[in-house]
């Protein structure tokens, strides 16, 4: 069944405590190549049947209203993935 992937990231200007904790841990494990990390969310919405324009529009709206908190997060990606 096709899925729609929605990616949500903390706004760049907003503190991301989770990313901060990870970037602190990486070098201790020998991963030294990264200067910053941000942690966001990935949602996979399964569509029963075909991904019509209407459904994609629904996904976009759900992304902005329910799946992300527009005060602190940006929807960075909404895309269809055929499974």
């Amino acid at each position, binding site marked *: 069944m096709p899925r729609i992937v929605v990616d949500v990231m903390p706004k760049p200007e907003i503190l991301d405590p*989770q990313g901060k904790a990870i970037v602190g841990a990486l070098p201790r494990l020998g991963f030294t190549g990264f200067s910053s990390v941000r942690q966001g969310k990935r949602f996979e919405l399964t569509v029963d049947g075909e991904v019509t324009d209407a459904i994609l529009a629904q996904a976009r709206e759900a992304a902005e209203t329910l799946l992300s908190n527009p005060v602190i997060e940006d929807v960075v990606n909404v895309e269809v993935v055929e499974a």
Partner: protein
Amino acid sequence: MTELPLIGEAIAVAAEPRLAGARIGVVTFPGTLDDRDAARAVRLAGGTAVPLWHADTTLGDVDAVVIPGGFSYGDYLRAGAIARFAPLMSKIIDAANSDAKLPVLGICNGFQILTESHLLPGSMIKNDHLKFMCRDQVLRVENSNTAWTLDYEAGQEITVPLKNQDGQYIAEEKVLDGLEAEGRVVFRYVGFNPNGSRRDIAGISNAAGNVVGLMPHPEHAVEVGFGPESLDGIGGTDTDGLGFFTSVLNKIVGGAK
């Protein structure tokens, strides 16, 4: 200037002087919360609590280790995920797996750290109701032969506080079947499953029974006036959790059950 006596530091040692020689390490990670409480529980049970720091590279001469609750590294990535890589954790993993079979107890975040470290199977995910939950919880002690449950009777019901956000225990079905078959389900929730854990599992052990992890907090049920009976008054006593600590102390000093 005098030192600031940290709350929990100044507690009189209880009975049984013979237990005082047993040294129980209590690990502190950045973000650990219940370390003072665990140390108090060890002292109230009669033992000597030894503070351990996550960055230490040796366990010193402790006879057992408690990994207390809290939010190590904020639990931001996954509960226990970052703490598991602390230098001290590799020492604890080695000692737990060695022939000496160091007794290790992981409480709440400590349990999560033990699963992340693969000392215990399975993992914890968010509570099925998605909320942090603090309540007094009845547990059944299913196995009274682990290092931490010797002082309980099998089948005994105890009441200890439970408080967590990511407490839903999950593992593959065959892992769960194996745990049941080997008697490694040490505690089960009774009456109410507070987080959706598979098969009502509240705590488990490794095969040897020296490593035990559970989500509820026995260290919050060790003192009259400050435990479930006093704060909630809905059953049990205030000190149902003390047995964890007397169990391991008795085992260490070689006393009978």
